[in-house]
């Protein structure tokens, strides 16, 4: 399901604070990796002739998994490629990412999927999985050949960027989960309610004059899709939740036994619609930044596990397409290279979320939601490790990005928290200069 460059590196990380929320580890330890596999965790681990990385003052954690990335390939290689997007992921501490199928052409056939997988084997700095579309051309009319796409190596199914408007079609897609075992991940948006909407509908949109994209445009579709998943008794993963009502619906469905997971993005966890007063097109995304109350519901849900996945929704756009008035700009912001630092700076340091919670929601949570192997710091596990400096400050944009695009919602901000090294599937994928 995941494809990338192969590698089997040797390494010892000495005296880092090792945090693995899944394994219940939080202490100063050495970790040794032989040929890409964790072989020893303890004190005074013998280096075995390996390169030793000093971890004092640093945190070693299971590397991150981002289940929501736009690699823009095929079609917009000027904005991102598999090589550049996975390099950005490695720099962000990710050991695996999932790419969305809303490319040109759409990933809706085994042929398109196969060519992406082949490229990924040659170019991907970290393993990447490709979601295939739920409907042909993401037109919301005909199902893709889901069983064949599953056989060809799809990582899941989504029409991300667009809703599956017809409930009957969404139901069929969920029924196919019984055959493929691959997660169906809807983009929840009721298009007659979100119509022309540029930002969250509320006092800020009223004052600025932007057409409003109300939170109910998301939550009515969340409720519909949860009802369908419940009826079909199939699991479902809800992409980029933004509204309190969506979180409440997810929580109620989980309590009723629906196998539903949900994700939130760093930008929805950090910002509110007040930020749009700057009229900066790098704050335009779908779903939009919502109210302080919505943000607080998302944070609570991440804390209590109702939302088990933090996903960047990394959406690169060409500079000239964003350097226009807000309404003319496309939706989407980048996020791979800033995700940890943003969450660390704005949520962990002020004490809103704990570091282990953030680490878990960025790694084990997303892996489980899509049925991927959970990155672990355990003997015998493949090395999927991120070495973090939690206090190092840096200014977003200085030194450029590994992504081909720079439409970051944090451009110019000073964050604390740097990725020093990323090991993905046993291969050192990134080292800070």
């Amino acid at each position, binding site marked *: 399901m995941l494809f990338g460059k192969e590698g089997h590196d040797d390494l010892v990380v000495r005296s880092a604070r090792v945090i693995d929320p899944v394994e219940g580890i939080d202490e100063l330890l050495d970790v040794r990796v032989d040929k890409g596999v964790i072989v020893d965790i303890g004190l005074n681990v013998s280096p075995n002739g390996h390169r030793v990385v000093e971890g004092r003052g640093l945190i070693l954690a299971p590397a991150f998994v981002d289940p929501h990335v736009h690699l823009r390939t095929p079609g917009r290689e000027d904005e991102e490629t598999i090589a550049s997007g996975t390099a950005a992921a490695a720099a962000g501490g990710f050991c695996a990412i999932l790419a969305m199928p809303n490319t040109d052409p759409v990933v809706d056939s085994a042929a398109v999927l196969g060519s992406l997988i082949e490229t990924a084997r040659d170019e991907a700095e970290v393993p990447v999985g490709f979601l295939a579309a739920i409907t042909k051309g993401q037109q919301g009319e005909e199902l893709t050949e889901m069983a064949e796409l599953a056989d060809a190596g799809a990582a899941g199914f989504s029409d991300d960027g667009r809703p599956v408007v017809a409930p009957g079609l969404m139901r069929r897609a969920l029924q196919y989960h019984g055959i493929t075992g691959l997660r169906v991940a809807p983009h929840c948006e009721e298009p007659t309610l979100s*119509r022309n909407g540029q930002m969250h*509908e*509320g*006092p800020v949109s009223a*004052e600025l*004059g932007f057409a409003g994209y109300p939170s109910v445009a998301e939550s009515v579709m969340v409720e519909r899709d949860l009802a369908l998943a419940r009826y079909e008794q199939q699991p479902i993963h809800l992409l980029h939740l933004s509204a309190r009502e969506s979180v409440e619906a997810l929580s109620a469905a989980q309590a009723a036994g629906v196998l539903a997971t949900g994700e939130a993005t760093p930008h929805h966890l950090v910002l509110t619609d007040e930020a749009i007063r700057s009229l900066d097109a790098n704050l335009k995304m779908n779903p939009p930044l919502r109210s302080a109350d919505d943000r607080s519901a998302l944070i609570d849900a991440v804390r209590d596990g109702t939302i088990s996945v933090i996903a960047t929704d990394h959406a690169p756009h060409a500079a000239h397409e964003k350097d226009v*008035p*807000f309404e003319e700009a496309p939706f989407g912001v980048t996020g791979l290279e800033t995700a940890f630092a943003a969450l660390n700076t704005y949520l962990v340091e002020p004490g809103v979320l704990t570091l282990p919670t953030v680490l878990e929601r960025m790694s084990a949570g997303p892996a489980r939601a899509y049925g991927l192997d959970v990155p672990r710091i355990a003997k015998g596990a493949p090395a999927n490790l991120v070495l973090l400096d939690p206090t190092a400050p840096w200014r977003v944009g200085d030194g450029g990005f590994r992504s081909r695009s720079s439409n970051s919602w944090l451009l110019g901000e000073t964050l604390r928290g740097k990725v020093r090294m990323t090991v993905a599937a046993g291969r050192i994928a990134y080292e800070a200069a």
Partner: protein
Amino acid sequence: MTVQLVRDDLLPPSDPPKRRHLISIGDLTRDDVSRLLATAHSFERSLEREMKKLPTLRGRTVVNLFFESSTRTSSSFELAAKRLSADVMSVKSSGSSVDKGESLKDTALTLDAYDPDVIVIRHPHIGAPGLVAQVTGAHIVNAGDGMHQHPTQALLDLYTIERNVGPIEGLHVAIVGDVLHSRVARSNIQALALMGARVTLVGPPPLIPRGIEAMGCEIATDIAVIGGADVVYVLRMQRERMEAGENFVPSLREYTARWGVTPERLLPGQKVMHPGPMNRGVEIDPRVADSPDALIETQVRSGLVVRMAVLYDLLTHGPVEVKSELAEEVA
């Protein structure tokens, strides 16, 4: 701390000189508004003394950059600049490079090569004036950006009310109609609230934006509330913004029956305003539009002197108080 006055042109390039713009009513303080209205009044008196042209802005260049059709605003700015002896150049989007797909940024950079002192811009999208301000060295005046702001309209409306009704503080103004699509309404709500007036919005719920009461106004759906207002401000039904199938109102006929401003719904002597262009027989009854209590033509005349005041103020005193600007520079 010593405060050093530095000539704008001597500031290092990394810290570009602070330019003043009029992009939103939110840029202004109450004192700024009072000063602008007083300046407008002195221009009005000088024009009455048959000095049609003042030498104040001789040698200055004003560019009118209009990406939307406009009669009264573009002509008003053009005449205002000419009355102050500025050189005026008007650029319209149709028949220009914009037709060939040129971006706003590139158009602005092109015009900036002529070193204009002021760029007056109207654009169908929110935030266009700010974008032009980022890439040019000119003072920017927003002549309407999407559904966001139309600050000179609000200033001319304040001027009209002050001169024809009385001091704005404590007045009750009812704004009737399509608030949702109206930049005029947004600028006026801010401006009237800033000057201490009470504002009530009246119209069908789909045309009253959710949450707008946070701007400091009240909301009503019953047209009868206009009976209690000192001024009834009628908004144009923006038919060109009502795409088929949007269903903001079931029909213009029903809108007019419920919310049309008719003589029967007004008290004798109640003043009526409209930013134009009017849809007679839709939002405003022709008998109201033509009555002596309608201030619609007065608004147009006010527009000229208020825009003269805005141009003058930007290029001389500036709407930002000198003290606060210095404080910013020092900080």
